[in-house]
């Protein structure tokens, strides 16, 4: 079941809301949520729901042990190690075993049978969530959850299980027991959900159809212009689809009293790659920062490297060298997380390289450039990044890059026609990549109080209108891709 589907919007969600709001107390409400979340998950993956419950149970037990033996010198560390090994192990087996074996075969020339295990939906999200829970308990950031079902509620919550955001237990721990629901929150949640739905169904799907035409075309048929156009619509498809899904998740949470953190903050208006990654898939970036980058930088190993570098090469080297090493590891891992294919690792290291270069000297250089050039720099880097991301079979990438930069390819007289016939749509899509709505709102509120009241009043008719349009699209649409099967 997908959020952007008629079954979800008109059957599952209303049933969920009715049962939830009819429930007399928090315990009943939590029960409704767990049951429906497990049902939602089992709808797509009847057996893997057990894997989800097992992964949760493991970290539930781990954390209780850590809590009990907190003063013991070894046990807490051991339990964290167990959590890391089992969670990453599960991920390794279900997600990466095919890649591991086929790569091993490629390197050694042997021919072991390559396993083709179906990837349980959301496994990349929930293993990261349960792992972050255990580590947060180890770090004494939040009290361990003594009730397994409450922990399961956090992990299995269908809002964020399938496509993020990666929610930290510490952020919603309090809300498990104390949630405020009222009309304003419900209305705000519905508004957010409808916006996300519109982004996905109206904008992302349309961009997606264009993207499939151009990115999927044999490279020989593409012109330089159509190759860039393909990247352009593909980038927009990904942004609107993913941020739309996050909007829907955040909106759904709101409807039930949960407040998840933002996952996207208009990434395409960034002026540097470092800034882009503070605005794109924020929950993943901050997960890797808190659970991989910081621990690496604070580790004995990198501290020693830093001290040695400082002694030999000076203070700056002492800071930069460990940071470069840690960043490389983080971006390798980030790339790897996005899919079991080497192009994703290349993609990760590509962005890692830009971040490292910006940190070392590129940022200072960029600051001197006019703003427009800085935006252009970022857009070009990001679009090429999407190109690397697209070609799972990396052999398709190099010819494509060639066409992008003027080598190979074929004249394509139809590209102007395509752009022309979609021009209004494309302008609107680009417009919504910018924070035009928040700007309008701020400007309006500055003008007079009546304006603010007007905006508030317009929410409901606007939501209804968008919902009607989306429903029309969904009824008529066969193209409604779900891009998160890989996670």
């Amino acid at each position, binding site marked *: 079941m997908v959020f952007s589907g008629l079954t979800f919007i008109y059957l599952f969600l209303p049933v969920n809301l009715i049962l939830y709001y009819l429930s007399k107390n928090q315990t009943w409400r939590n029960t409704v949520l767990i049951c429906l979340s497990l049902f939602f998950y089992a709808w797509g993956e009847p057996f893997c729901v057990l894997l989800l419950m097992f992964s949760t149970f493991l970290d539930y037990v781990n954390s209780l042990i850590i809590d009990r033996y907190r003063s013991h010198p070894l046990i807490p560390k051991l339990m964290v190690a167990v959590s890391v090994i089992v969670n990453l192990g599960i991920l390794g087996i279900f997600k990466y075993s095919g890649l591991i074996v086929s790569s091993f075969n490629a390197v050694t020339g042997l021919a072991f049978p390559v396993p083709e295990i179906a990837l349980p939906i959301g496994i990349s999200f929930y293993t990261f969530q349960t792992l972050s829970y255990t580590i947060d308990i180890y*770090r004494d*950031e939040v009290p361990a959850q003594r009730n397994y079902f409450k922990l399961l509620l956090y992990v299995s919550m269908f809002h964020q299980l399938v496509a993020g955001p990666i929610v930290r237990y510490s952020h919603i721990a309090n809300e498990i027991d104390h949630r405020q629901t009222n009309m304003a929150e419900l209305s705000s949640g519905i508004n957010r959900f409808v916006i996300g739905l519109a982004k996905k169904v109206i904008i992302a799907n349309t961009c997606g159809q264009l993207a499939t035409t151009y990115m999927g075309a044999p490279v020989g048929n593409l012109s330089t212009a159509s190759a860039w156009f393909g990247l352009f619509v593909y980038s927009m498809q990904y942004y609107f689809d993913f941020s739309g899904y996050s909007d829907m998740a955040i909106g759904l949470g709101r409807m039930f009293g949960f407040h998840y953190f933002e996952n996207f903050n208009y990434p395409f208006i960034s002026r540097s790659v*470092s800034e882009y990654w503070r605005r794109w898939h924020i929950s993943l970036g901050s997960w890797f*920062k808190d659970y991989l980058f*910081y621990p690496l930088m*604070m580790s004995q190993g990198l501290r020693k490297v830093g001290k040695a570098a400082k002694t030999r090469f000076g203070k700056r080297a002492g*800071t930069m060298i460990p940071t470069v090493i840690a960043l490389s590891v983080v971006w390798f891992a980030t790339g790897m997380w996005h899919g079991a294919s080497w192009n994703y690792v290349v993609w990760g290291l590509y962005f890692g390289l830009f971040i490292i270069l910006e940190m070392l000297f590129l940022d200072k250089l960029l600051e001197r450039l006019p703003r427009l050039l800085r935006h252009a720099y970022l857009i070009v880097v990001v679009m090429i990044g999407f190109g690397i991301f697209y070609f799972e079979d990396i052999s398709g990438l190099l010819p494509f890059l060639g066409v992008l930069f003027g080598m190979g390819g074929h004249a394509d007289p139809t590209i102007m026609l395509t752009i022309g016939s979609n021009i209004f749509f494309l302008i609107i899509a680009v417009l919504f990549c910018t924070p035009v709505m928040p700007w309008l709102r701020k400007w309006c509120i500055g003008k007079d109080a009546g304006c603010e009241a007007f905006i508030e009043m317009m929410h409901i008719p606007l939501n209804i209108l968008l919902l009607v349009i989306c429903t029309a699209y969904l009824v008529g649409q066969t193209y409604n891709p779900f891009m998160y099967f890989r996670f």
Partner: protein
Amino acid sequence: MNTNELYERLNMVFCDVFDDDSIKVGAATVAADIDGWDSLMHITLIQAVEDEFSIRLAMKDVVSLKCVGDLAETVLARTSK
């Protein structure tokens, strides 16, 4: 160590880490107030503070630090142990 001394020493560390002698930190100073204090420099700062006060900070301190006031409190807590 009293509060003034603590903040003086912290300030020295900040000036050194961010290569800027004009920095003046207070309890309410946050990362956004200091040019260059991002997640990449955060650890450098933490380690410089550790070296200055001969303490070791826990990951919990690193991750949950919101302002210099938090940092000062943590330093006090760790030095009085």
